[in-house]
């Protein structure tokens, strides 16, 4: 199995350790990993602000970089960026049949990290261990557009030493929403505070997600409000503990 990594821009620049963990976990499972050097961003910030022309420009670049046959899948440690490619590229190219077809073809090969592990590799246990009490936040694209709900939880339940807890109104959005978080910061933060209240009630000391963008927002708010909750991407948890 050969995969190309699609590392979202903010993971590349702000949380590169998430990408490193993805590489290590995949290699441990015998997957051959490559990283197409020309990649940048999926274009979602422009898209969700209504700048479809600009998003199409970025999407064309993405298609050029990733549309190669030398890898079986494109794996991405973000439900949101995966959704941008698999669901919203066909949406923005709706009236451009050639590009829509390219986008649809590529869209089938892009898989979110946990989805890839569980549904493509058939792996539910990676031999990781991590102590603590955690809650898992499912990003909205991952929940609704991708429908990848149980996969990360299954993987986490098999992490030795980790207690996965339920939290109230788990399905509510964290309030990030891309540019929404700066366009309407008061509402965005009120949404984060509701999640944080639920997190406190759960007694968890670790917050895990498959989306570093939600974590950047929730984590940033936790830090600002004096919490010392640990913020981890799923890949980092799966990459922890004794080397297998």
């Amino acid at each position: 199995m050969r995969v190309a990594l699609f590392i979202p821009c903010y993971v590349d620049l702000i949380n590169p350790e998430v990408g490193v963990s993805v590489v290590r976990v995949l290699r441990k499972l015998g997957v051959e990993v490559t990283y197409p050097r020309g990649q940048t961003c999926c274009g979602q910030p422009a898209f969700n602000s209504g700048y479809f022309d600009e998003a199409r420009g970025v999407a064309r670049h993405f298609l050029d970089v990733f549309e190669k046959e030398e890898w079986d899948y494109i794996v991405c440690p973000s439900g949101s960026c995966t959704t941008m490619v698999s669901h919203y590229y066909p949406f923005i190219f709706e009236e451009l049949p050639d590009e829509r077809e390219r986008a649809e073809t590529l869209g089938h090969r892009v898989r979110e990290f946990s989805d890839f592990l569980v549904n493509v590799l058939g792996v539910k246990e990676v031999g990781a261990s991590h102590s603590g009490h955690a809650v898992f936040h499912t990003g909205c694209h991952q929940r609704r557009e991708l429908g990848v709900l149980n996969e990360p939880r299954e993987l986490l339940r098999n992490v030795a030493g980790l207690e996965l807890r339920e939290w109230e109104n788990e399905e509510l959005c964290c309030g990030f929403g891309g540019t929404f978080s700066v366009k309407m910061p008061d509402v965005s933060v009120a949404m984060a505070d509701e999640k944080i209240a639920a997190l406190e009630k759960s007694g968890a000391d670790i917050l895990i997600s498959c989306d570093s963008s939600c974590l950047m927002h929730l984590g940033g708010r936790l830090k600002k409000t004096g919490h010392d909750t640990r913020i981890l991407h799923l890949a980092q948890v799966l990459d922890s503990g004794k080397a297998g």
Partner: protein
Amino acid sequence: MTTSKPARRRDTTDKRAEGIESKVEGFNARAKEAVKDQELHDSISLFTNKTLTGRNANFWALPNAPELREKAYRTKQETMANLDSYLAQMADAVEERGGNVFFASDGEDVVKYIGDLARCKGAKIITKSKSMATEEIELNHRLEEDYADLDLEIVETDLGEWIAQLAGDTPSHIVGPILHMNKRRVTEVLSGVAGEELPPDVAALGQFARERLREKFINADIGITGANFGVAETGTIATVTNEGNARLVTSVPPVHVVVMGIEKIIPKFEDLSTFVQLLGRSGTGQKITVYTNFITGPRGEGELDGAEEFHLILMDNGRSKLLGTEYEEALYCIRCGSCLNVCPVYRQTGGHAYGSTYSGPIGAVITPLLKGDKEAKDLPYASSLCGACSETCPVGIPLHDLLLKLRNRQVEEGMSTRAESLMFKGFERTMRTPAAYRAGAKVGKIAQKPVVKDGSIKRVPGTGAWTNFRGLAPLAEKSFREMWKEGI
């Protein structure tokens, strides 16, 4: 009903420069205040959590929920494709039963029709059952103003709507008009009307309302209702309520006027079985509402009840211009309000923040569509695009995708700020050119050095919308691509 009245009272502590951030006006300004209101937040949670629990138990628990939803979507799709013929069919059916039909192109037409009718009948008291279509055109207010000489007494009879009317307030939710008021506030409003202190007790308050409203029901000259559904085949209108007020409004006064948005039409009587189920189960979480009325024309010979005169007003008010466009699905809405209940933005702000008759995701979609983008500029952005609305919608309207299209429409109409459009042009150029992306990252890493402290970026001009509220992580020492190059 002004949608985006410029509030102009910029928060002086707000350091945001004009750019990607929304101005603190319109929705954004009202929401900023609303999120601080704990009482409002508690009231919203109480209502939305209760209806959501009911919806989950009674709608999504139905084994055929997905099929029902699909069926409703297809029915609406087919109806909109042939709307003109269904409307003609319904008009014929109503006239055949002795009713009157009037096609109103806008709110003004509706006001004039009802005002003239009231004059002609010498009406004094008009009772109304809950109708969002009449809220949309501010019917009560307009009649009182334009027909001031008639000295009409217009009384809302849905308990929530009545209390809103007494308080000089507007509904903040399609289904629960005064969910923003708690018991204390309701007691205050009703005590003011009673002229004495009423006990804050639901039964006592209900009794007071019953006595007051009964007197109006009996003496009304005209009854006005909306229509939850209108059946083309038979000319029947359906109203669903939990208080029975629509029955008293439609059967006691000699004249019954229905104000129905043209999109409320469904082809066949049997389609009601699909739609009535969807509405009750997803709207209030009930298997069926307490009163479900089907009214077909005026009282016929030998019939025991019904108004002597029946008027059906089919109101367009901007709806028909959506037909055949990429926004047509917005017309499939049955006004169940469940997209409001699940919306994390609505749950923080309540309905009044939207500044429009229809709030929540459906309001953010149809307000700009019906009234124009300039009237509701901020509403398509009043969403984190989480998709909970589209997921819950019982007729399958892709609400968050429509919000995205509306954002795009504003950009294409040149409504965004110059700073923002330049920024996204730059974004595109950078992201299309890997060398520019890498160079940008390098510059960023150097530029951030003086402002990084304890693993966070401290306040930098232009980042306040983030850093006033949240920690901001700096760019990493080494990017992933640099690590990859060096070997992982």
